[in-house]
C-alpha cells in the first residue's frame, strides 16, 4: 500500500497543531517548521506527480474499506498536478510572508497556513463528494483565519462578508449533496459515474437539480458571474501574501467543476449531459466582462488585481465549459499559468504598497527601487494580461484555439480578446500611475509635493526590499517563463491529464475495481 498519497493531507495536518501549540510563542521555530513542512510537501508533490505521470490511477482506500463504502483518495495526473501547483505556490507565498514579516503581524499564521494547505490538498485528492465538502470547509475556515490575519477594520469587515458568502455557499453545497444522495444513493464519485448513466432523462429531474446546484457551489469558489461579487473585496483586503495564496482557491472551484461535472455529470450521461456547459459558458463570458471592466475602472491597485483574477477565471471557465479534452487541456494550462500570474501580482503589489502608503492609483513620490518594482510589476502584468513572452499569451492562444466550435467561436473570441484589451489598458494605466508618474513627483519633504499628497500621515522612510523579499516574486515570474518555454512538454502532459480525466471507464475501474464501468 502506497501511503504517499495521504501525506499531502497528513503532513500539514500534523504539523499545524504542533506549530499551533508547541511553537506559538517562538516565531523562528514556527517559521522553520512551516518552511520545512512546505518544502517537504513540494517534494512529496513532485514524487506524486512522477508517480501519476505514467497514467496509472492510484487509489488509496482510507480505513481499508472498499469503495464506494469508505472514502478513497484518487491520485491521477490531474490531482497530482493540482497538489504540485498548490505546494509550489505555497512555498513561494510562505517565503514572501516570512521575508516581509506578514506572518508575525497576527497569531497562528503558520498553523492556519498549514491547515489551509491540508484543506486544499485534501480537496484535490479526494474521490468522495461528501469528503470534498469537508475539505472545502477546512480550506475555507483556514482561509477565513488567513483572510483576517492581523486584523484591521476594512479587513475584518470584508472578511465578514467573505465568511457569510461562503457559509451560504456551504449551505447550498449540503442541499446539493442531500439531493444527490437521495437520487443516487452514493457519494463516491466513481460510483456516481456508474449510477448516473443508468438514470434516464425522464427520471433525472432530481439528479439534474443536484448537478446544477453543485455547479453553483463550485462557481462561488471559482468567482463565476453572478456569484463572483464577493471576490474583489475579499482579495483586495486580504493580507497580500494571503491573497496570493488565494490564487489557488478559485482554482479549487474550477477543479471541482472539472472533476465532478466531467466524471459524474459529463459527456455520456443522458440525464445531465451538456447542462452545466451551457450555463458555464454564458457565465464565463459575463465573468470576463466583469473582470475586464473592473480592471479598467479600478481606483486602487489591490482591487484591480482582484478583478484581473475574476477575468482570468472567466477565461479559464470558458475553456472548462466546452467539456472536451482539448479545451480542458487548454484550461489546465491556463489554470497553472493564472495561478502563478495572480500570485505574482499580489506579491509585487505588496512590495509596492507597503512602501507607498496605500494602494490608490494616484501618483505618489517614487519609492526606493522604483525601477525594480516597475520591472517586476511589468512582468507580472504582462503575465496576467496574457502578453508574450510569458505563458499567459500561450494560454490564451490555447484557449482560443480550443474554442472553435461554431456556436462558441464568436462569443468566446470576442470576450477573450476584448477582455484582454481592456485588461491591458487597465494595467498600463495602473503601472504608469504607480511607477512612471511617481518619478515626476519629488520625494517626501520636498516643497513641491502637492498638498493633496501631503494630507495622509507620512509613511516611515521606505526600506529597500531585501533579496528574500523579492525572490518569491521572481520565482513566480520564473515559473511563468518556464511554463512558456516548456509549453510543449507541459501541454503534452496536460493533454494526457485531460485525456485521463475524460476516460471515465479507467477512473471507475481504478476506484471500484474491474467490471464496474458502464
Amino acid at each position, binding site marked *: 500500500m502506497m501511503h504517499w498519497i495521504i501525506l499531502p493531507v497528513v503532513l500539514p495536518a500534523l504539523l499545524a497543531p504542533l506549530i499551533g501549540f508547541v511553537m506559538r510563542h517562538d516565531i523562528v521555530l514556527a517559521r522553520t517548521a512551516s518552511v520545512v513542512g512546505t518544502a517537504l510537501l513540494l517534494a512529496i508533490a513532485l514524487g506524486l506527480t512522477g508517480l501519476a505521470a505514467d497514467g496509472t490511477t492510484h487509489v488509496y482506500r482510507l480505513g481499508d474499506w472498499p469503495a464506494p463504502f469508505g472514502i478513497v483518495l484518487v491520485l491521477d495526473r490531474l490531482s497530482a498536478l493540482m497538489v504540485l501547483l498548490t505546494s509550489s505556490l505555497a512555498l513561494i507565498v510562505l517565503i514572501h510572508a516570512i521575508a516581509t514579516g506578514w506572518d508575525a503581524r497576527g497569531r497562528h499564521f503558520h498553523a492556519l497556513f498549514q491547515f489551509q494547505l491540508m484543506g486544499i490538498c485534501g480537496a484535490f485528492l479526494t474521490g468522495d463528494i461528501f469528503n470534498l465538502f*469537508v475539505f472545502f*470547509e477546512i480550506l475555507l*475556515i483556514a482561509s477565513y483565519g488567513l483572510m483576517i490575519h492581523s486584523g484591521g*477594520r476594512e479587513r475584518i469587515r470584508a472578511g465578514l462578508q467573505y465568511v457569510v458568502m461562503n457559509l451560504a455557499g*456551504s449551505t447550498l453545497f*449540503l442541499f446539493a449533496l*442531500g439531493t444527490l*444522495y437521495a437520487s443516487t444513493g452514493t457519494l463516491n464519485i466513481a460510483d456516481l459515474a456508474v449510477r448516473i448513466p443508468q438514470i434516464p432523462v425522464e427520471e433525472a429531474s432530481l439528479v439534474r437539480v443536484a448537478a446544477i446546484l453543485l455547479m453553483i457551489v463550485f462557481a462561488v469558489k471559482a468567482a463565476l458571474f453572478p456569484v463572483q461579487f464577493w471576490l474583489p473585496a475579499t482579495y483586495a483586503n486580504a493580507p497580500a501574501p494571503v491573497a496570493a495564496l488565494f490564487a489557488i482557491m478559485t482554482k479549487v472551484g474550477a477543479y471541482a467543476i472539472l472533476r465532478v461535472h466531467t466524471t459524474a455529470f459529463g459527456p455520456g450521461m443522458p440525464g445531465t449531459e451538456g447542462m452545466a456547459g451551457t450555463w458555464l459558458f454564458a457565465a464565463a463570458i459575463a465573468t470576463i466582462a466583469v473582470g475586464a471592466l473592473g480592471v479598467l475602472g479600478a481606483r486602487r491597485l489591490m482591487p484591480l488585481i482582484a478583478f484581473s483574477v475574476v477575468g482570468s477565471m472567466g477565461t479559464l471557465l470558458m475553456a472548462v465549459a466546452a467539456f472536451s479534452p482539448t479545451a480542458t487541456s487548454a484550461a489546465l494550462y491556463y489554470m497553472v499559468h493564472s495561478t502563478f500570474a495572480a500570485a505574482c501580482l499580489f506579491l509585487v503589489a505588496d512590495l509596492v504598497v507597503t512602501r507607498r502608503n496605500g494602494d490608490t492609483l494616484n501618483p505618489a513620490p517614487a519609492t526606493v527601487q522604483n525601477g525594480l518594482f516597475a520591472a517586476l510589476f511589468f512582468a507580472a502584468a504582462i503575465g496576467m494580461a496574457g502578453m508574450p513572452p510569458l505563458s499567459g499569451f500561450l494560454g490564451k492562444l490555447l484557449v482560443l484555439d480550443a474554442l472553435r466550435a461554431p456556436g462558441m467561436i464568436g462569443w468566446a473570441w470576442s470576450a477573450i480578446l476584448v477582455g484582454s484589451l481592456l485588461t491591458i489598458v487597465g494595467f498600463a494605466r495602473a503601472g504608469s500611475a504607480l511607477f512612471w508618474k511617481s518619478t515626476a513627483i519629488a520625494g517626501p519633504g520636498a516643497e513641491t509635493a502637492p498638498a493633496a499628497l501631503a494630507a495622509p500621515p507620512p509613511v516611515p522612510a521606505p526600506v529597500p526590499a531585501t533579496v528574500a523579499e523579492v525572490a518569491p516574486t521572481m520565482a513566480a515570474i520564473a515559473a511563468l517563463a518556464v511554463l512558456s518555454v516548456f509549453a510543449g512538454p507541459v501541454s503534452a502532459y496536460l493533454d494526457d491529464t485531460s485525456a485521463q480525466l475524460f476516460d471515465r471507464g479507467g477512473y471507475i475501474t481504478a476506484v471500484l475495481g474491474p467490471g464496474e464501468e458502464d
Partner: protein
Amino acid sequence: MEIIVASTIGVLTAGGVYLLLRLRTFPVILGLALLSYAVNVFLFASGGLAIDQSPILARYGEASYTDPLPQALVLTAIVISFGMTAVLVMVGLGAYLEADSDRIDIDPEDEDENAGKDAQA
C-alpha cells in the same frame, strides 16, 4: 410525516433566507442558523424517513434499520456548521467593534467617513 418534514425544511429555509438578506450582522447570523437547521434536516431526509428503526444493531430487536449514512453526514455537517457559526459570530463581533457599526454591507462612502473619524480619534 413527509409533508411535515418537507414543510419544516421549507419554512426554515424561507425564514433563513429572509434573515440572511437583512442588513445587520446579527439577523444574518440568525438566518444562517435557521438555514443550517434546514439543511441538516434536508440532508437527514435524503435517506428517507423511518420510525423506530434506529441504526443501533440488534439491541432492541428490530430487524430493519433506517439509513445510517445520512445521519453520519448530518453529524459531520452539524459539527462543521458549529465551527463556522462560532467563527462567524466572532468575526461579526470583530467587525462591529472595529467599525462601530454592525451593518454588514460596506458602503464605500461610509467607509471614508469612518476612516476620517478614526484618524481624528
